[in-house]
């Protein structure tokens, strides 16, 4: 499942809800990845734009990949502003086997960073500044140039 929230994520509640949803599903491994806004470059926080239609189809393709390995994935992300030391992203894999889970969370998070249609802005002195230098062009970019 894919969950989008306005503003910061309630990490303990999400981790608990997901654990309890799958507690009896007979998965041996549960690995959440929690991303938190770090204090650096004097930012006050981050802000996110999300394009939901493509995010949903991207996530669906990963749900299929997970299913083929007997695993499931869940993801939560913030829209809008998330301040310092708040969390904006949680992804989690549940799998019968630990190796599958450890490899899947890595692949999923890396592809998320490279492909998910989400744009990040630094919040600085009341302004929203696109984080171009930390962003990645989606594979196949540039066909109109």
């Amino acid at each position, binding site marked *: 499942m894919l969950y989008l929230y306005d503003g910061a994520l309630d990490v303990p509640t999400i981790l608990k809800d997901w654990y309890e949803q799958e507690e009896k599903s007979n998965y041996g491994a549960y690995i959440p990845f929690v991303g938190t806004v770090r204090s650096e470059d004097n930012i006050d926080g981050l802000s996110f734009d*999300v394009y939901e239609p493509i995010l949903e*189809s991207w996530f669906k393709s990963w749900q299929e990949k997970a299913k083929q390995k007997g695993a499931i994935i869940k993801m939560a992300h913030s829209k809008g502003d998330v301040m310092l030391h708040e969390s904006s992203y949680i992804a989690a894999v549940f799998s019968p086997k630990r190796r599958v889970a450890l490899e899947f969370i890595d692949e999923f998070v890396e592809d*998320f960073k490279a492909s998910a249609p*989400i744009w990040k802005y630094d919040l600085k002195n009341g302004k929203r500044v696109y984080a171009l230098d930390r962003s990645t*062009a989606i594979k*196949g*970019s540039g*066909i*109109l*140039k």
Partner: protein
Amino acid sequence: MVRVEFLGPIQKETLELEITNLNELAKILQDDKEMQKWLENSAVAVNDTLVSSREYGLKDGDKVSLLPPVCGG
């Protein structure tokens, strides 16, 4: 009519264009100085599916989206 949307940080209003493929869109956007930097690094989706060729045909009612570099998380 094809609707062209600019996502995320691209500060440009949605366009409504009479075009039949992405080649025609490319020519129109290349003439827009503000857009040149984005054409380099943006991906293109038609009706919310990413496409990899400029030859992609468009029909009345299609939606084209430009996706600049991403950074979720």
